[in-house]
């Protein structure tokens, strides 16, 4: 399946791009993260401490165990600091 993957803040800076389309068979967020980390050092670095990374599926906060079935857009970013 094809997934739009988007990155924000320092996750975006470490990976070096704001958005990409990924072809994957990953069943869960965690599986996708493992695939990305295996790709290149910059991905490995960005996801080296997943406790510092949040995930949203189709613009709703989710978690790393969540299945990717039917998901079109997945976002990775640090804990939010608005306000």
């Amino acid at each position: 399946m094809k997934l739009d993957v988007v990155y924000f803040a320092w996750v975006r800076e470490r990976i070096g791009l704001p958005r990409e389309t990924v072809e994957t068979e990953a069943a869960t967020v965690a599986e996708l993260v493992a695939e990305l980390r295996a790709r290149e050092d910059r991905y490995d670095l960005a996801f080296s401490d997943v406790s510092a990374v949040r995930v949203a599926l189709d613009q709703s906060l989710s978690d790393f165990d969540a299945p990717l079935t039917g998901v079109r857009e997945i976002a990775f970013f640090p804990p939010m600091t608005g306000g």
Partner: protein
Amino acid sequence: MVVRVQLEDFDLGQELDRLRAGRTDIGALVSFTGLVRDDTGNLTALELEHYPGMTEAALAEIEAEAQRRWALNDSLIIHRYGPLKPGEQIMMVAAAAPHRKAAFEAADYLMDFLKSRAPFWKKEHGVEGAKWVEAKEDDEAALKRW
């Protein structure tokens, strides 16, 4: 119930005036304004990044939940993004209610959830370089109050 995410500044007084204009059922109006603080004089800019689409949805959901929890006449959230200078307004929330307790609690609630659940990230640009603001554990803990 309005949510706005915008680059440009807002007029706090005008927003609050508009919220109560022509009404006589509001007894209490509470506003919170977040400002770019620079204690040391080393901050050149605060840059705000956000997740267009998700931001608006998250803020609208936080506001809807506040409306479910308290008897509010109206509420408003405005949040800016882009580069801001020290002293500038970052964002505001307002809650209007018949009674003061609901207005205070709702504004406090909006702020707590906005801080930790709306996809904004701050980067401080200073004379010695740039650095992402880290989320405070306190902010996550504050959600348990509600």
